[in-house]
């Protein structure tokens, strides 16, 4: 511990934020209070739109879909829907041709799809609908609100929007880009003179994580950034 020439109350207040009790009380009282005083909107999911080439390869999708049946039976149904369609999924992913990695995961009572793909998000989902739309229908019918967008082949735009809304907000790599995301959502155009208060960053983060309970942290590590599936396969001589 740091040496201190201050009094007992100073030391207690320094220690307080590290305690479980304070964190619990703050979560029950201070967080709801400040959420009412300074409401925060949920930030949209998926990658930020960009024209730059490097930003349009190896994009992440972190899709979290809450199951209708929140029990082992509901989770087993979801697992079965994926297992029964494994060949369809793999063949579909090969046909899409822009996917680096994809996997289904069950976390709590959510069926999740995490993938890394190249190109535009809406085209990625369109390709999926074309190649494995039937599998999506099987999975999505087990998910809360899924019946509104199935069959996905007949509700393409609605389905794309539905997926986008369940794709996690990707917290930027830098704290200040997180602030810029909030400002963009709130229509703040950084008019002059700027008069921010950077000391509010912790509260802004807490309240944002209240609005977006699940998020992807940072941009993610890439071993070979900037390269598409097509380039990697060509360079490695894996054919197409």
């Amino acid at each position, binding site marked *: 511990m740091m040496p201190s020439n201050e009094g007992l109350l100073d030391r*207690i*207040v320094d220690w307080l934020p590290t305690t479980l009790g304070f964190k619990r009380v*703050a979560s029950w009282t*201070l967080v709801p209070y400040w959420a009412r005083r300074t409401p925060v909107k949920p930030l949209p999911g998926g990658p930020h739109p960009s024209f*730059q080439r490097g930003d349009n390869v190896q994009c992440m999708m972190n899709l979290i879909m809450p199951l209708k049946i929140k029990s082992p039976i509901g989770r087993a149904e979801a697992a079965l829907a994926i297992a029964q369609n494994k060949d369809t999924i793999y063949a579909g992913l090969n046909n899409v041709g822009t996917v680096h990695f994809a996997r289904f995961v069950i976390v709590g009572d959510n069926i999740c799809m995490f993938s890394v793909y190249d190109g535009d998000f809406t085209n990625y989902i369109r390709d999926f609908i074309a190649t494995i739309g039937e599998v999506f229908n099987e999975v999505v019918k087990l998910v809360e609100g899924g019946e509104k967008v199935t069959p996905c082949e007949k509700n393409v735009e609605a389905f794309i929007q539905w997926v986008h809304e369940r794709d996690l907000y990707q917290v930027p790599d830098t*704290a200040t880009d997180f602030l810029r995301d909030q400002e963009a959502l709130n229509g703040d155009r950084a008019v002059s003179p*700027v008069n921010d208060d950077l000391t509010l960053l912790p509260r802004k983060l807490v309240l944002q994580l209240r609005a977006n309970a699940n998020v992807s942290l940072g941009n993610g590590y*890439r071993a070979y950034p900037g*390269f598409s599936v097509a380039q990697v396969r060509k360079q490695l001589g894996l054919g197409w």
Partner: protein
Amino acid sequence: MVDASVAKRLVQAIIDNLPEPVPGRRPVHTIGIGVKGKFVASDVARTYCIAEHFNGQSVDVSVRFSNGLGGLEQHDGWSDVRGMAARFHLRDGTGSDLIATTLGEFFVRNVDDFFKFSEVAKREPYERRRWWQKLGDLLQLKVPPRNPYPNETQSVDAGALRYANRHRFSQLGIFQVGLIGAPESYARASYHAVHTFWVTGPGAVRRPVRFSWQPVAGVRNTKLTDVPRDKYLFEELKDRLRRWPARFMLMMTIGEEGDALDDPTKPWPGTRIRIAMGTLTLTEVPEDQDAAGERISFNPCRLAPGIEASNDPILEARLGAYEVSREMRGGCPFRWRPDDAK
């Protein structure tokens, strides 16, 4: 090149904010240690840059690690930006420098910004925030400012925060400075050259790039809760190199159209192509520290053919400011000729 009088004003602005004058020494990054090493480029480096030190042959390198604070007091354990200035010694006696710090992005875009920052971010008395003020911070879901370090009575933190609140371009750099901490070792920190450079490859292909050193030993800071020690980094490095060399990978990120080429406050996305350009192996802390680091006049614009400075105004200003600083302390002059390049 930035006007000589502007370069002098830049250096003077830094000197004016020192706790005490440091004649004959660098006004910032005053405390440092020189190290000897060798750099070997990777197999692919030469396909991106024709500069001599990227051709794959072993090149002697002089490195000076430093604490960012100006002044003669050594506070290794304080949260501070650290420097890693490297001189690649080329065959004809000239050199190519790469000056990097643990700060990922700079906090001003140009010379005018720097002067305004210097006016706002003056040293001010720094006292421990009282308990009721901290309690107020916690009730507002703010993190109270850190307690002063032992013997710390002044700081630029409050002024820098005021500047950042008014200038969004500066927020990332100043935010990073606030969280930067103290490394366990100079060999356990990543160092970033912040500016964009242009490298020329075979066939005269030019690419905008940014360089970073990444420690093979991994990045590790001291614990925030530990009592900061004032002097440990020099001995740690000597001990480390007596036992085993310390290595750094030189990573080069290639920018794309639309990336900030002339603005060191803006980061490039992590999705840019990243090339491993080579490995620096540090082997020895020489006894003669004057020759190994203190007398070397590093300059971020001293670049081997094949590497060019971008139009970044801060990089341009550093060319002159480093020379002014060098003249003031009587360091070796900036020369390109092989006979006196030091």
